[in-house]
């Protein structure tokens, strides 16, 4: 946020907020730990609004539901902003002191009246107004989001639309008020913080920051290019152009998790060399030239993870890894050693201390000893006597302009509909969703039984099922502009007419990403998983041809 990729608040603040907005997030199922904090907040009297195309289990705890059409979040956010400004509820003193670009923003959102908001989003104007007023009038408000915001072709704009709302109302940088992007797993935040984002150095430094880069070059005794590398979507494009010929893939299953999976698999198969390093024999591993079995780092090796509130926590070894499996860092170092460098075999703590020597702002103060005795620390934590930073951007509220620093900019954004447009031959909007007891392509969850698990199905509204003459459980062909899959139908009251949902969890049963859209956001590199246009075709006779095409992950 405002230059640092992390949430501004701590989880605990949700317990003391007056209002919690869960936007594009079914946290009840997909972030159950964070949702415990939300539940505590509700118990303490907080109101909760859910913005989601589906009537999810999160919605069933909400005081209000804004069931917008997929891909209209920016229109909704702008409409909320327009209403807040029109009602005079924007925080003028915060805007004046701590932001820039308000006038541009005001002009941009001006056409998004409640009526236009309703027209674009299909959310009743009264409901938009209700959330606008509730958010603007709350003393403490948390704005949280997940993949409903970030899996779009213009995902970064979606995020800006939400940040703008926080700036407009001053709901940032104060205890209880904040912006909270919920990460998809325990260490998505940590992965990004450690340099997995191509334009960033570990510790969040911009690659073009000469001073920082020089420090890393000294520490690593190597030259670093100031030019960002490729992110995943760019890599596949480079494969397509035959520029990228070899891939070293660690803990990722792109053969199933990439949008437009058929295309992705074709690219992976066409590589000169594919190395897969994973704890499971994934579908991607099946395509690899070399498979390196790795240890499960959360229980078979030492280390740290960083959660959505920027808290770095220690992970401890509980059991020995099976067979030939080794910790990821050992494998990487060993490869370096074989390539003629001397990386040795550092311990997890030695790797961490090296990071601390270069990540001066975020991690320098976080020794293993402190992480253990203090139950984790939230970055930035620049010195050993620094308590960590539960709340970010408090500076924006400082009275002294010097302390306040660079103001936070409004970033006006416009509504752009999903690229995969609805049309007479693709009349139904398909959105991918996740549920409580499964994870992404099922690599980590498919091998385990769960009492709650429902088999994969294309979930649709009862009206659509009746119109198409479909019965519960009937296998249909789902056709998108990229491909088709077979899946059984299930009528689900969470959906609305014209909206269907499917998960990516059961790839062995339904290869969902064959039909999703791989158009991606140039700012974030994320594909538009959330919005595909499909049609549902009846299948003459039941068929199971799709089954068992790919090996079952986790087996």
């Amino acid at each position: 946020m405002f230059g640092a990729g992390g949430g501004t608040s701590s989880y605990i603040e949700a317990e003391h907020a007056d209002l919690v907005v869960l936007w594009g997030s079914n946290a009840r199922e997909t972030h159950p730990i964070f949702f415990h904090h939300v539940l505590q907040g509700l118990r303490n009297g907080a109101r909760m609004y859910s913005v989601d195309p589906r009537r999810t289990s999160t919605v069933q705890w909400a005081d209000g539901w804004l069931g917008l059409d997929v891909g209209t979040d920016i229109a909704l956010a702008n409409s909320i902003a327009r209403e807040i400004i029109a009602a005079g509820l924007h925080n003028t003193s915060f805007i004046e002191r701590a932001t820039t670009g308000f006038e541009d923003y005001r002009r941009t959102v001006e056409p998004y009246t409640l009526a236009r908001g309703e027209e674009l989003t299909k959310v009743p104007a009264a409901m938009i107004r209700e959330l606008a007023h509730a958010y603007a009038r709350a003393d403490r408000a948390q704005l949280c989001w997940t993949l409903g915001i970030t899996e779009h072709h213009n995902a970064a704009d979606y995020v800006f639309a939400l940040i703008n709302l926080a700036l407009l109302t001053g709901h940032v940088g104060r205890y209880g008020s904040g912006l909270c992007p919920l990460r998809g797993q325990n260490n998505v935040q940590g992965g990004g913080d450690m340099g997995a984002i191509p334009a960033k150095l570990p510790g969040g430094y911009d690659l073009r920051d000469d001073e920082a880069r020089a420090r890393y070059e000294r520490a690593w005794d190597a030259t670093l290019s100031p030019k960002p590398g490729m992110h995943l979507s760019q890599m596949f494009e480079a494969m397509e152009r035959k520029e990228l010929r070899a891939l070293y893939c660690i803990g990722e299953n792109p053969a199933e998790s990439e949008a437009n999976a058929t295309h992705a698999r074709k690219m992976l198969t066409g590589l000169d060399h594919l190395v897969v390093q994973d704890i499971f024999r994934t579908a991607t591993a099946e395509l690899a030239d070399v498979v390196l079995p790795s240890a499960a780092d959360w229980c078979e090796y030492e280390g740290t993870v960083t959660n959505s509130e920027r808290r770095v926590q220690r992970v401890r070894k509980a059991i020995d890894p099976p067979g030939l499996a080794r910790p990821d860092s050992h494998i990487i170092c060993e490869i370096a050693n074989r390539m003629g460098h001397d990386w040795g075999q550092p311990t997890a703590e030695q790797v961490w201390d090296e990071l601390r020597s270069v990540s001066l702002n975020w991690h320098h103060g976080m020794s293993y000893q402190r992480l253990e005795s203090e139950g984790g620390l939230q970055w930035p934590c620049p010195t050993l006597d620094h308590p960590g930073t539960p709340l970010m951007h408090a500076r924006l509220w400082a009275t002294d302009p010097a302390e306040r620093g660079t103001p936070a900019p409004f970033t006006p954004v416009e509504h752009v509909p999903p690229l995969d447009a609805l049309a007479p031959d693709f009349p139904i909007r398909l959105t991918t969703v996740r549920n409580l007891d499964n994870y992404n392509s099922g690599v980590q969850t498919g091998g385990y039984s769960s009492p709650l698990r429902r088999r994969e199905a294309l979930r649709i509204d009862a009206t659509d099922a009746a119109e198409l003459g479909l019965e519960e459980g009937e296998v249909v062909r789902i056709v998108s502009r990229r491909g088709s899959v077979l899946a059984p139908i299930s009528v689900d009251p969470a959906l609305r007419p014209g909206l269907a949902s499917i998960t990516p969890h059961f790839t062995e049963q339904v290869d969902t990403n064959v039909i999703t859209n791989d158009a991606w956001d140039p700012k974030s590199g994320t594909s538009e998983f959330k919005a595909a246009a499909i049609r549902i075709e009846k299948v003459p006779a039941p068929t199971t041809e799709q089954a068992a095409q790919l090996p079952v992950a986790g087996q």
Partner: protein
Amino acid sequence: MDLRLTQARANDAERAAVDGVVSAALGGGSANGSSAGSVRDEHFADAGHAARGRRHLVLPTLHAVQEDIGWISPGALNYVSLRLSVAPADVYGVATFYAMFSTEPRAPRVVHVCDDVVCGQRGGERLAQGLAAELGAEGSGDDVCWVRSPCLGLCERAPAVLLQRTGEPDYSIAPASVEQTLGAAAGGGTGAVGADAAFDDTSVSAPQTGSRSASGLRLLRRVGVVNPASLDDYRANGGYTALRRAVGIGPTRVIKEVSDSSLTGRGGAAFPTGLKWDGVAKAPERPHYLVCNADESEPGTFKDRILLESDPFGLVEAMTIAGYATGCERGYLYIRGEYPLATRRLMNAIEQARQRGYLGADVMGEGFSFDLELRRGAGAYICGEETALLNSIEGFRGEPRNKPPFPSVSGLFGKPTVINNVETLYNVLEVLSVGGPAFAEIGGGRSTGPKLFCLSGAVARPGVYEVPFGTTLREVLELAGGTVGELRTILLGGAAGGFVLPDRLDVPLTLEGTREIGASLGSGVIFAIDTSVDMTEILRRIAAFFRDESCGQCVPCRVGTVRQEESLARMLRHAEIGSREQELALLDDLGKVMRDASICGLGQTAPAAIQSAIGLGLLSEGVGQ
């Protein structure tokens, strides 16, 4: 919240029963508009705070289903769960907590036969055997079944039955015969109206009242005099003068009068009422709640029932005064489920008071707001414990809470709450009419004012008697025409009380006087036991009562009450483990554990009568065999 329900679905009648209660409670429209009607889809509960705030309707909705359908099916449980946003396991937990609810199909007409300490000895057992001969074993039968019941609070008219009827109002018959009971259960007789009329002559239950109306009655002064269905008649007999006086002197002076009167709670714990009111009145947290504990269930106790049946407006007025003085805008009247007549009379009284502006937004035009809601229990003695009662109102199982915090700090819905017993509240009317100091002159010490006693068993005229504090036990017994047969002992204070031997009859019936001889007034029970009765059997019945009524929350009580009954049952069949002395030592041991380690008063007093009997030698070899 997101509920996981089984496939069982409610039928139309079950939905209608639940919807009726919910719609009435929401006043036709709800906080978030669309949710007032029936549920849009069975997979979704209404969401948000408004929906989750309806848990307190669990008991009323279950009552509605039980009354209309005759049992509570899995589908009905699911529908209650859905409408009230309560987890299905919790709804099931509540439904199975109460004796009057059945979660299995059951005959539409159920005869509850009182076989407790008083009725059991005085025809209840014979009645049970007679019904068994006609209807078959307890609980069996397609159209009519009979079940044993703990004390129904009709001891002065023993033996008593309660007829629970699907789709029709319940009513009590006392004294009951096998023929009359069978006829009524078959739908004959005069129904509830006729059965209620049998209670019109109050001199049967309260011999001091009615035609021979004795002067000097205070609590009972309107009993048998006033028409219990008429607000006008109540006013013609001095009704609402106390509230008028209260409003005239203001809340602070009302509390001062009550404090000056030294009135103590009549529910058993004898806490100073003025202190309780003052605590809540000064509590900064809002809102404040008032609760009247009319869950009179102590075996042998029926004094509150007489007041509620014969002078219902008196309670409404007294609660209004309490609400006014302590800053409560809402009062709950929690009455035991086995009091159908009192419930009907009170519902009528509340409705009339509301219509005439004695309840509502602007009481008597005096600018303060107070309204009352009647909540019925469903057969659980433990709900007479104040915190269990609060849980019951809130829609949880009626399990007591740990104290502290006390209800005056954190009570109903976690807010400061005044909880008063019925008799205590009627005393408030008296305090306001004579003034606190004058009230304090009746009796003395902590025992001031008039007191009601429930005389039953071996006395000539059982019933409720009113005497000033300080009257001796012998004088009260004489008021009831003296004892019948050779008196062995008196059970004073109820099942949770203790025994008094005939040589102590001159004990003054005050808190102090009874404590001096190791007894307690408890709920005002005076149960006379003559020498024809087997003491071990009486105590076994008391032990069985506590075993049945233990809520099971804490181990000392849950296990202790079972072990206690087992020991007494062994003694009764002369199958003692070791000797009788060893059994008595075991009982003594159990008693200590229960008294010291139970969460609430039920477990702590469950061994009281048995300990008392052991102490007085009533269980020793050769006594009453």
